[in-house]
């Protein structure tokens, strides 16, 4: 419960920070949007229309109370007769981002856990070394480079996938998966190393415990020792690393989206920044912050649920 309140407080703080930082951006929004030929009258009219002439605190409160209800206001690009709310601009993009993140996560998380368990089980074997070397390589390469490499091999050399991940609401699932395969694969390669290494390290730390020696002396097989006796006690650090990586899959995909021209939130935000579309930038930033906080909250809750000491407290009077 206290974690929930803490999460909410962080979110409020972050929203204020986002608002302040955006307000500090150099240049005048009205002039940037209306172009160099705008008369002072049109600038003033625009400022009045979007409310920039009112005090910052009032604007913040109005923005945040709208955001709570899912109303992020109007984009600066909307005109009378052609209104574009921020929500309707973001929603389809966010769906795309979630789809890509989910696709990548479904591959990356099981793969990372399997590789981590295997390399802990066969510590210092050729398998362990190979997995470690490969994941280290993939984490060391910049993601756009990984993306271009994948394109080179799987589009140019062996035409399996698409280099452009252009999808829209009407794309059927099968084709959608095929078109997003390369961006998802890129994301898998950059996130799996981090998670896999944490799984391995965390299990190896637990393997030094007396209850693992006991399990060995009970005559259990190495696989059973790792899966049943080591893994449940190694969860806490693994879960938090997975959470951070899942958040990264949603928030940190800007480069990958740009390389593959994928219509996600990251690209929308980049566009909005260059167009000085402040409401869109703010909304994107807030959604990203909320994602991070939510993921960490989920990790905290999972940690508690996976620890019997916290889930089943000592009963009073039992000594």
């Amino acid at each position, binding site marked *: 419960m206290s974690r929930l309140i803490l999460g909410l407080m962080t979110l409020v703080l972050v929203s204020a920070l986002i608002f302040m930082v955006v307000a500090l951006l150099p240049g005048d929004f009205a002039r940037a949007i209306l172009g160099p030929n705008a008369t002072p009258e049109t600038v003033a009219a625009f400022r009045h229309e979007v409310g920039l002439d009112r005090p910052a605190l009032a604007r913040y409160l109005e923005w945040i109370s709208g955001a709570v209800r899912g109303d992020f206001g109007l984009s600066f690009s909307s005109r009378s007769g052609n209104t574009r709310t921020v929500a309707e601009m973001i929603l389809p993009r966010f769906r795309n981002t979630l789809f890509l993140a989910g696709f990548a996560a479904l591959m990356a998380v099981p793969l990372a856990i399997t590789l981590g368990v295997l390399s802990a089980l066969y510590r210092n074997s050729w398998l362990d070394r190979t997995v470690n070397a490969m994941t280290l390589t993939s984490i060391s390469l910049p993601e756009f480079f990984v993306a271009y490499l994948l394109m080179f091999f799987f589009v140019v050399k062996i035409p399996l996938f698409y280099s452009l991940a252009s999808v829209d609401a009407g794309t059927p699932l099968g084709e959608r998966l095929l078109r997003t395969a390369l961006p998802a694969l890129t994301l898998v390669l950059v996130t799996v190393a981090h998670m896999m290494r944490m799984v391995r390290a965390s299990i190896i730390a637990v393997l030094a*415990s*007396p*209850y693992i*020696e*006991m*399990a*060995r*002396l*009970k*005559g*259990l*097989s190495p696989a*059973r020792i790792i899966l*049943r*006796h080591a893994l*449940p*006690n190694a969860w806490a650090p693994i879960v938090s690393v997975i959470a951070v990586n899942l958040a990264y899959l949603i928030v940190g995909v800007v480069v990958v989206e740009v390389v593959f021209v994928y219509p996600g939130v990251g690209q929308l935000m980049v566009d909005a920044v260059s167009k000085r579309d402040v409401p869109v930038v703010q909304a994107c930033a807030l959604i990203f912050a909320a994602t991070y906080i939510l993921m960490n909250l989920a990790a905290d809750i999972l940690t508690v649920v*996976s*620890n*019997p*000491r916290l889930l*089943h407290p*000592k*009963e009073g009077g*039992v*000594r």
Partner: protein
Amino acid sequence: MTQTASPLLRIKGLHIEGESNGVWHEIVRGIDLTLNRGEVLGLIGESGAGKSTLGLAAMGYTKPGCRLTAGSIHFDGQDLARADTRSLRDLWGRRIAYVAQSAAAAFNPAHRLIEQVIEVPVVHRTSLSPAAREDAVTLFRDLQLPDPERIGRRFPHQVSGGQLQRAMTAMAMTCRPDLIIFDEPTTALDVSTQIEVMAAIRSVVREFGTAAIYITHDLAVVTQMADRLMVLRHGELVEEAPTAEMIATPRQSYTRSLWAVQALHKPERPSDGRTLLEVDHLGARYGSFRVLDDVSFSVPEGRTVALVGESGSGKSSLARVLTGLLAPCDGQIRYDGRPLPARFQDRDRSLLREIQMIYQLPDTALNPRHRIGDIIGQQVTLHLGLRGAARERRVRDLFEMIELSPHLANRLPSELSGGQKQRVCIARALAAEPRLIICDEVTSALDQLVAEGILKLLMRLQAEVGVSYLYITHDIATVDAVADTVVVMQQGRIVEQGTKGDVLSAPRDSYTCRLLSSVPRIEVGWLDAVLSGRSGSGPRAKADDGTVWSSAWLPPAP
């Protein structure tokens, strides 16, 4: 030789090496060992004697960082020293089982007890899960665990240390193995729990005719458990004989020195009337949980007050109140005739200097990155304001007082033995020139011979500098060695206090009686005598409260 006469286990010329800092040194040096079916062999010796290494080797297992260099381990005709891991795995748990020293660490915190207990027969396919569950409940009942039907549903952290130790014995028994290795199974328990676990272990070992190797450094315990004893020292056999024979006529001087430890006795000196510390109706709580209730006693100048009780009785909480770490909720403390401020922050420098504390675990009480000379020197500078050559001289004097060579001043704590580290802790307390030292179980983590040295040192220092001790312990033998007066605590209250002679020889409180009678003696048949005495004097209490004693021996309800 007939089949029945062939030994279950025969170890020949066993050598095991261990590695530390890249250097291999011998832990076990050419041990021969024979164990017959159904026989219980006791392995005794100080820490570092190679007992545990030998015990594990009897399973064909060596800890990581150890290696078997020579010798054979024949278990029922099969040489475990040369067996592959698959055939060892088949034996472990099924025919040879292991009971570890700390059940709290050896049970997996993530699973319920029953799941861990039945894992052995299920994995070895000796029985199916439902049958194994039923059998586990039977074993829980045999081992006198409370609520045997449901205790298995608990997680390890939800039951006490003594209950866990019995659950681990049940786990070892599930496949009815031919051999069980007990590695110090009662060392971490206090006396009244220890006697229950000892009785439980012995009855199931006898019931199923299991052979056992019982490893301990406590002679009195092993005397009750083993048919035959082997004394080990530095990885070599010192002496081997049937238990009764070895107790009656130990041949080697080292064995006799082990025997002598428990005989340490300090003549009691009555107080000369001056009181240093007076505790008056003291109470304290952690949150809403009351840890101390109406505690009153006094510490005379230059004398030792022993504070006795089992774990959870409030001994250490009292020490925390006296040192100002825990504020009392009622009552007061008078020190040297004046009220003692409740919090250490409110005490002035001279009060902080005069009351010092020595802890149970010297490993955690010494900063591992400070050199010994600095650890003591810092105290000298802080409390006496000595610097430079004067400080060096004082540190050297202190080294002499604790009988350590001044050459050790440049060492780090990790380069010292347990006993040496505890001496350094004593020197650090002495450096402040205190009038009262609170000793919290200072010898319970040490071997008997080392502990004896520490106790003698404490007594000599008292005679020389007239310091008073408040000595917290659960070990009655230690009380006999140090105390002038004794205070017995149970569940945060004082149940009895008086001079050592009165309390130890003529205890009035039933709890004190039980505590005293639970202290193992080096006498064959002591355990049987105590158990029959306890169960003969009344109807057996049901196992609900975790004890098997007659109701006459139960402590009064609080």
